[in-house]
């Protein structure tokens, strides 16, 4: 840390430039050039972003006109980046509807058709074979998930096993929503927890907070062949997610809010899945809740999931 306050020829204030000053200038220039070179990949990344995307407001702050502009822009970007013609809509929740899901563990045979249907319906990344549903092969006579196995590779069902699919439980008190620092995720009036993929900053705090391992992060830009892209898309559900953002199961709201059933239910060959409006006393799901032995996962956490498991008695 020894330094000299004299400069140049040794006399103070003589006005000449010292060798030391010149070397500093050279060093600073080289350093700046090296820094520019080091962060050059950032410029390639910025080229893939648009100013409109950068400046886009939160979903809840968009007027109907703004939203329309955003939806058309996203369709255009999908065309540019993936070559597919898609329609991105934004169906709002219906009055007097609260969605619930129930799953019959007595008949689920672990075929994982639900997970596969989810993968296709929701435009998941193909190489990682992503899905919002994980199916656990469990030991009969135990609910200990530590004994469960999500990576089974043999014919199903095995005689001593039962099968438990797990996906987002759409909690009444979702911890993922509480922890998000930018309100990029919230619970809709029909009980579905959604993510604004264009507002999420990718901190993954919600993923850490979720007790059901229901959230997925886009560790890289999703890869999907043009012809496999599902063109029926929703802004808050199955549109192709941007790199670096969080996503999750939305009970296929682009389908269910239009009166259809979730893709996982339609794909289930055993009829293990029941979906419907919890507020409608005549609905099938209400019948299940009233007549079956029903339980929820991790009840002790007090999150009040709207996803129920039951056994045939």
């Amino acid at each position, binding site marked *: *840390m*020894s*330094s000299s*306050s004299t400069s140049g020829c040794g006399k103070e204030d003589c006005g000449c430039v010292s060798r*030391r000053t010149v070397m*500093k200038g050279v060093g600073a220039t080289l*350093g700046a050039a*090296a*820094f520019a070179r*080091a*962060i*050059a*990949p*950032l410029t*390639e*990344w*910025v080229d893939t*972003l648009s100013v409109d995307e*950068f400046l886009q407001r*939160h979903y809840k702050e968009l007027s109907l006109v703004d939203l329309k502009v955003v939806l058309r822009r996203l369709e255009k970007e999908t065309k540019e980046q993936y070559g597919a013609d898609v329609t991105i809509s934004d169906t709002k929740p219906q009055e007097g509807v609260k969605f619930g899901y129930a799953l019959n563990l007595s008949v689920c045979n672990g075929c994982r058709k639900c997970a596969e249907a989810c993968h296709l319906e929701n435009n998941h990344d193909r190489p990682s074979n992503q899905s919002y549903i994980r199916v656990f092969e469990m030991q009969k006579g135990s609910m*200990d*998930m*530590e004994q*469960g196995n*999500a990576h089974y590779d043999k014919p199903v069902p095995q005689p001593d096993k039962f099968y438990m699919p797990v996906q987002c439980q759409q909690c009444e008190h979702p*911890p993922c929503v*509480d*922890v*998000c*620092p*930018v*309100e*990029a995720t919230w619970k809709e009036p029909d009980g579905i927890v959604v993510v604004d993929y264009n*507002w*999420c*900053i*990718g*901190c*993954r*705090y919600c993923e*850490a*907070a*979720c*007790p059901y*391992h229901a*959230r*997925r*992060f*886009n*560790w*890289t*830009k999703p890869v999907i062949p043009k012809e496999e892209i599902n063109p029926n898309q929703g802004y808050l559900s199955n549109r192709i997610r*941007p*790199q*670096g*953002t*969080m996503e999750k199961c939305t009970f296929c709201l682009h389908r269910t809010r239009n009166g259809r059933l979730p893709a996982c239910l339609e794909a289930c060959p055993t009829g293990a899945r029941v979906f419907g409006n919890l507020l409608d006393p005549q609905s099938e799901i209400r019948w299940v809740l009233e007549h079956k032995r029903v339980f929820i996962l*991790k009840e002790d*956490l*007090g999150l009040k999931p709207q996803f129920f498991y039951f056994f045939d008695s």
Partner: protein
Amino acid sequence: MSAAPEASPSPSRPAFWRNFGRFLGNAALESLDGGKLFYIWMFCLTAIFLVGANAWAVQVRDGMALSNMSDHVSWGLYIANFTFLVGLAAGGVMMVIPAYLYHDEEMHDIVIIGELLAIAAIIMSLMFVICDLGRPDRFWHLLPPFGRLHFPVSMLSWDVIVLNGYLFINAYICAYLLYMRYLGQTPDPRWYVPFVFLSIVWAISIHTVTAFLYCGLGGRPFWNTALLAPRFLASAFVSGPAFIVLAIQVIRQAVGRHFGDGPIRTLVNIMRITILVNLLMVVSEVFTEFYTGGAHTSAARYLYFGLHGHDELVWWIWSSITLVAVAAVLMLLPSVFTKHWILNTACILAFIGIWIEKGMGLIIPGFVPSTLHEIVEYRPSAIEWKITAGIWALGLIIYTLFIKIAAGIVLNRTKLHAIPDEPPASESSPAPLPTL
């Protein structure tokens, strides 16, 4: 840097502010001037920083898939370092408390070494958060009024506030004291003492809030313990003083002046207590986990002994415990005050031990096994190590320059007006100066 008992008459405001730009310029120039060793040190750090900057740019472009994090272990080396550095920043306050609360005059003279460390550590911890974001371009979403800060519900929003607040408070205190010294005036206690006391409370808050980030998650039993915040503080009050003791010794060598034996003694006495408290808390947690048993213990079992054949972290945690335990023994030796190598070894071991404990020993086992009890292991990728090294290098660059600026001003090399005779570093009141 040093607080004089009496305040000098306040300068008129325009004169006070007129020279601030020149102060910054002088400080910057002075900080970049040094001997051969200084340039070699800065060159090496810059080279490491550039490697890290490049790795970060590639990670942002190609996605976080380049890290070894996964949907199961969604936070890794970055958040581990972030947590440790928040502690290091909070640990800086362990110089402020003796100086201002207990009027330790000798500590007063060099307390800025700790305050500058707090600034550098907070800058580093914020950089680690940025590097952990999938979309750093959307950082503005956190900034009201443009963004939507989820305050007060999200603990992360609290963390944003307390960390930036702590950065601001310490930057203000340091800038004020150094600028007054630069002007040759006595600092007015009314303009900094309230902020010093605020910074003491705030230092506790930054590490408490950071602990609450984790222990507020009911779905992760390994973190969901009330002991987390106190344990954070206890370990921070080891790692902070350990770094400061080492820094004081390096600065003594560089400046060529002997100072700070008293403060080092105080810091060692602090560490003697905090390191034992930290070890006691480790024992308490281990007892609760293993004597109780049950499914909630699986993360601790994985951490300490391995689970179902997976044992990535076992080596880490036992080396951490060993390092801290050996450091504790060394610090309790009476010769720690007389033999420098014992002191230095103890500080280095404690620092590394706590760095491991806050990373591999705390953040990662929170994710293994996952909330659905799957075991997915994590080992940082080369990109993650490069970025981490880059941020540490930048932090050391910042800290070195800060210390150089402070030393230049305190030793009266950087000054507004010439002072006839250079007073010693420990002189608490500067030489009389011409009026501005």
